[in-house]
């Protein structure tokens, strides 16, 4: 059983794969929302669920970790590298090479088939090589996820379960150290939710990747090492420190 508000598991020692957010201050320029906390650490291989009601800052936290958003102050470190201090191109390169992301509505590209959707991160990043090995890797990821016979189908021709797998395949293509999933089960029925979480765990364990899942669905929290409740950071307590959890 997962422990709510648990401290990092002692078996997860600080390493080059650790996520560390220190003295974070973030506010959206066009809203009153503020996020502030002194320290959040997530160890290598840890499976963390971030829960809380809508609008409390869960997605913002994921975006800060991925380097999509930058804090007004504080440092976001991934594996010892301060992603928040990197230049935009550097940060994008870092994100594409090391972070796998799964989105709530899968966000597959409708005009690309399964194989090309898995390869999409490579297509849109010219720094990454699109060679035979990458193609084979996409085929192999598709096979692992049971999509071998559907590689030439388009998202509209797939079931929701199959679309999930394509979204996971896209996140896994480059063997990411960190997997960030934003409400990956938000639009699924219960059995598909559990399958999705199982697949994420499986992929995470295969690569010893750190998995961070943002969710407001308490029904899927069973297998996580740690659950962080973001509710306390919302409203009047928006400046609460995560490390106190």
């Amino acid at each position, binding site marked *: 059983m997962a422990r709510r508000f648990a401290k990092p598991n002692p078996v997860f020692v600080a390493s080059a794969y650790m996520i560390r957010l220190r003295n974070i201050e973030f506010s959206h320029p066009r809203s009153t929302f503020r996020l502030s906390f002194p320290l959040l650490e997530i160890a290598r291989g840890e499976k963390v669920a971030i829960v809380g009601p809508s609008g409390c800052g869960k997605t913002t936290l994921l*975006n800060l970790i*991925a380097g*999509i958003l930058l804090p007004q102050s504080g440092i976001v470190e991934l594996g010892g590298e301060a992603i928040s201090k990197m230049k*935009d*191109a550097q940060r*994008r*390169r870092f*994100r*594409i090479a090391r972070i796998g*992301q799964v*989105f709530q*509505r899968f*966000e597959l*590209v*409708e*005009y*690309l088939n399964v194989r*090309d959707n898995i390869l*999409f*991160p490579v*297509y*849109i*990043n*010219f720094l990454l090589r*699109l060679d035979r090995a990458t193609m084979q890797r996409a085929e192999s990821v598709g096979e692992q996820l049971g999509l071998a016979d559907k590689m030439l189908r*388009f998202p509209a021709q797939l079931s929701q379960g199959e679309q999930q797998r394509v979204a996971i395949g896209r996140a896994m293509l480059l063997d990411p150290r960190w997997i960030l999933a934003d409400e990956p089960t938000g639009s699924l029925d219960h059995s598909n939710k559990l399958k999705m979480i199982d697949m994420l765990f499986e992929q995470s364990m295969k690569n010893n990747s750190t998995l961070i899942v943002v969710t407001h669905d308490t029904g899927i929290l069973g297998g996580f090492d740690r659950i962080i409740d973001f509710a306390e950071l919302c409203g009047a307590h928006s400046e609460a420190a995560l490390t106190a959890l």
Partner: protein
Amino acid sequence: MTRIFWLAWRYVLYHRWKTAIMIACISLTCLFPIAISVLLDQFNHQIVLRARATPFVVGARGSKLDLALHTIYFEGRSPEQIPYGSMELVTSSGSAAALPIHSKYTAHGKRVIGTTLDYFEFRGLVIDRGDSLVRIGDCVVGANVARDLKLKPGDQILTHSDNIVDIAGSYPVKLTVTGIFSPADSPDDQVIFVDIKTTWVIDGHGHGHADVRHVGDEKLLGIDGNKRIASAAVQPYIEFDEESLRDLHFHGVMQDFPVSAIIVIPRDERSATLLLSQLNRSESMIQMTEPLLEVQQLMAIVFQIKRLFNANALLMGISTLLLLFLVVMLSLRLREGERQTMHKLGCGRRTVWLTQVTELVLVFIFASICISIMTILLVLVPPDFLKWFTVAS
């Protein structure tokens, strides 16, 4: 850059119907003014070419444009006729050659043109099958007439009669096809050529019939001295063979027989000027005109109308562009999520926009290709009606 084009290509391919509609919109909007311009230029070129090949035309007083257009294209109502004797006014001084044109009749919907053999030489018409005109009742048909009416040398066609001496009945004349012209891509392909005398026979000025000395009294209206006046019961020959040609005779003076127009080929510019001043006197019943001038005046009006078309095309183009802009903006709004995903995955904002702009560029490239192909086709394969305005060479 290759990957951007590839992604854009995949998008265009996936949304092929949407893309096809956009390409069609752009192509048609652009093609309309281009086609008008190309066709009009070709039309102008061809019409001027034919007019230039017909130096002057003499005909009855009235619209000079109608006279010129009818004489060189054989289209529209036949102009008022003038006497054949007018030819002498033109040729008497030896300063010009003249070709009579008689264009009053039709046969099976095709215009029957009475002229002389010199006309064929003047237009450079070449006989493809059969022979030229030999005797009255012979005809040589244009390539399109032969094709449309499935005629070959030796066949016969009946004229649609409009006989001026026909009181009791109409007597069409049976023409024998002696030859077929090679295609000339000109109005000459559309008509049936006969000797000018044949048209006078159709007119009723010349005819053949049974010898009235040997017809029964029941077919005689009376006897005036040694003159026997036959009734309409004595039918004229409508077909010409050796026997009927022997009996063929003309009533009246040839100088008074009608022609629709006369093509005048002056020896030099001075002769042309003299003829113009001589024939265009105010008291003259005939007039002489230069088809090229008439056609150029006509084209000046046509080009003025073209400006209206251009203005219309411009407005259409602007409205189409605005509609396309709206479609693109709505499409971009709908694809906001896709752009966000690309950005979140690590794609630069510039690359994200470049990908979507490239899709639009592809649409414009395809539209340009369509426009180019259609324009080339218009130039290489002009519509049939343009061929009518060409001159045989």
